[in-house]
C-alpha cells in the first residue's frame, strides 16, 4: 500500500505534462526528418519515405500489441520468436496444399496465422497470469520454446513457399498498393486505428489501463485482472499474426533466425513512443511514431555515407538515448 500512496508524488502536476509526453515522440520524429534531409537529400523523396514506413510495418504492428501488454503491466519478450514460429507454420500450411484454390488457400492460411498467433498469445498470457511467473522470465522461456520449435520445423534450414503461383498471388500484400498507398502502410494505420479505439474508447481498454496502474484497485472494482492481462497477450499474438501475414509475402521464406531481436525493437518503439514500462499508460500513436523513428534512424545511417558500418550499432544506440533525453527534457518543461 505504501507504494501506491507515494506514487502521487511522481504523478504529473498538471495535465500539461501529459500532453508534452504525448507530443515528445512526434517532435523527435520531426527532428530526425530534418537531420535525414541534411544527411542525404534523397532521404525525403517519397519513394524512400514510403519504403521506410512500409518496412517499419512489422515492428510497428508487433509494437501495437506490445503497447497493450506493457500498459496492462506485462511484458512479452517472445514476440520475435513468435513471428518466426507462426510464419513457419503458415508457410508449412501453404505447402501442404490442403486447399486447392490458390485464393482460398491464401485466405485460409491467413486465418491459420491469426489463430496460431492468438493461441501463442494465450499460452504466454496463461503462463504469466495463472502460472504467476514474472512476465520477463515466462516470455523469455517461451522465446526459447518458439525459436526452438522453429529450428526443429525448419530442420536447421529455411522454410520457403513452394508454390510459385501462390507466392505470386501473395506478393502484392507486401509489394502492392491501393491508390499509390502501399498495402503495409494501410495495414499499419488500420491496425493502429483499431488498437487506439479499443484502448481508448472501450471498456476493455479502460480495464487494461486500470490493471496496469493498480492491480489491487482493479481487482476490488470487480475487474478480473487475469482475464484482462491474458487478453492483452492474446491481442499481442494477433498483432504478431498480422505482422506475419505481411511479412511472409515479402521474403516468401523464414528460418530460425527470422524476427531475431524484434522483441527488443518493439519494446523500444513502445517506450520511445511514451508508454511507461511500469504500466498504466498506453500511447498507440506514440508507439507508431516510435517504430518509425527506429526504422528512420537505420535508414539515415544507410543513406549517409559518413558512418563506418562497424559503428552503425553504436550510433543507433546513441540516437535512442538522445531521443529519450530530448523527450525527458521536453516533459520537464
Amino acid at each position: 500500500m505504501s507504494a501506491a500512496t507515494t506514487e502521487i508524488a511522481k504523478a504529473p502536476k498538471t495535465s500539461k505534462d501529459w500532453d508534452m509526453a504525448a507530443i515528445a515522440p512526434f517532435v523527435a520524429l520531426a527532428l530526425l526528418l530534418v537531420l535525414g534531409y541534411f544527411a542525404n537529400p534523397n532521404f525525403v523523396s517519397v519513394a524512400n519515405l514510403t519504403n521506410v514506413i512500409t518496412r517499419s510495418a512489422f515492428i510497428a504492428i508487433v509494437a501495437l500489441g506490445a503497447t497493450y501488454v506493457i500498459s496492462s503491466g506485462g511484458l512479452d519478450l517472445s514476440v520475435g520468436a513468435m513471428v518466426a514460429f507462426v510464419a513457419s507454420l503458415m508457410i508449412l500450411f501453404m505447402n501442404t496444399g490442403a486447399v486447392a484454390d490458390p485464393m482460398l488457400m491464401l485466405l485460409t492460411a491467413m486465418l491459420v496465422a491469426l489463430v496460431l498467433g492468438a493461441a501463442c498469445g494465450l499460452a504466454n498470457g496463461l503462463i504469466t497470469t495463472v502460472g504467476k511467473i514474472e512476465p520477463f522470465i515466462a516470455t523469455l522461456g517461451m522465446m526459447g520454446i518458439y525459436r526452438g520449435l522453429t529450428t526443429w520445423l525448419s530442420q536447421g534450414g529455411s522454410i520457403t513457399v513452394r508454390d510459385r503461383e501462390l507466392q505470386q498471388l501473395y506478393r502484392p500484400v507486401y509489394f502492392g498498393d491501393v491508390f499509390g498507398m502501399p498495402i503495409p502502410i494501410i495495414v499499419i494505420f488500420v491496425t493502429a486505428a483499431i488498437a487506439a479505439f479499443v484502448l481508448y474508447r472501450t471498456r476493455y481498454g479502460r480495464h487494461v489501463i486500470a490493471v496496469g496502474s493498480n492491480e489491487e484497485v482493479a481487482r476490488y472494482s470487480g475487474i478480473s485482472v487475469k482475464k484482462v492481462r491474458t487478453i492483452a497477450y492474446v491481442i499481442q499474438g494477433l498483432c504478431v499474426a498480422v505482422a506475419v501475414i505481411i511479412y511472409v509475402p515479402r521474403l516468401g521464406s523464414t528460418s530460425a533466425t527470422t524476427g531475431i531481436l524484434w522483441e527488443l525493437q518493439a519494446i523500444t518503439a513502445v517506450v520511445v513512443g511514451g508508454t511507461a514500462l511500469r504500466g498504466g499508460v498506453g500511447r498507440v500513436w506514440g508507439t507508431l511514431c516510435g517504430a518509425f523513428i527506429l526504422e528512420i534512424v537505420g535508414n539515415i545511417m544507410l543513406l549517409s555515407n559518413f558512418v563506418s558500418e562497424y559503428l552503425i550499432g553504436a550510433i543507433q544506440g546513441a540516437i535512442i538515448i538522445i531521443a529519450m533525453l530530448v523527450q525527458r527534457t521536453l516533459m520537464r518543461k
Partner: protein
Amino acid sequence: WAQEEKKVTIGVSIPAADHGWTAGVVFHAERVAKLLMAEHKGLNVIVKTSADPASQANAVQDLAVQGIDALVILPTDPDQLVSAIQQVKDDGKFVALVDRAPSVNDNTIRDLYVAGNNPALGEVAGKYIAETTPEAEVVIIRGLPIPIDQQRQDGFDKGIEGSKVKVLDRQYGNWSRDDAFRVMQDYLTKYPKIDVVWCQDDDMAVGVLEAIEQAKRTDIQYVVGGAGSKDMIKRVMDGDKIMPVDVLYPPAMVATAMQLTAGGFYDQVPVSGNYILDATLVTKDNAKDFYFPDSPF
C-alpha cells in the same frame, strides 16, 4: 580515357561482421572498394553491412534509392532475400550474387554468381577424414540453424559415404568460440573416445582446441576446421599435428565479384555466369599460398 569518365555506382550489400568469416568478407569488400575507386575515377562503391535478412532487404532498398548501377550482394539468407534482389534485377540493374544461392538461381535473378562451395566444404572435409582415418569416430560442431550450415552437413555426409566413419554427435556451436568450447567440453565428458572433431569453421576450432588442451585428452587425433583463417592456416603451415589440414572457403570471394562487376563496366568484357571457387584442401605443402597475415580473419 573516355570510359574512365563514366560514372558508375556499385552497391555492395554484405552481412555484418558477426564472426571471423564475415569479418573477412567485410575486410575484403572494403579493401577492394578502395582499390577499385582509385583505379576508376568515375566509380563509386558503397558497401553496406546488415545483421539479418530483414535488415539486409532494407539495405538493398536503400541502395536502390541512392541510384546504383550494379548490386553485389552476399545475402545473409538467400531465400529470404530473393524478392529484394529480384526488384533490383527487374529495374534493369546488374546483379552479382555472392556465395549463397537461393533455391532458384538463374539468370532471372542475377547476372553473375560467384561462390564458394558449401556442400563441397563439407564434402572435402568428409572425404579427408574418410581417407585418413577410415574408422574414425567423429563429433561435429555445427554453425547456426540456417541453410548454408545444412548444406555443409549434407556435403559432409556425402563425403563419408561408404566409409566406416561414424558420427557420434552433432550440436550447434553457433559459429562462436565460446559455444564451441562449451559443446566440446561436454563432448569430452560424454564420449570417452573421440578420434576426430569436425567443426567446419576456424573460429569455432579455437574453442575446440582449448577444450581439448584443458582436458589433456590424447585420443583426439586431429581437428578439421574450415574457411581458412590466418591463424589456422599458420598452424597447418607449421605442421601442427592437431590441425593437419584446413578447408578453404575464402571470404575474398566478395572481392572477386566486385572486381568482375567493375570489369564489366570499364573493361567492356561481358561478365555473366557462374564462378564457383573450389573448396581447396589446405595442407602443409600449399598452405603458404593462402596465408594473408594482414587480414582480420
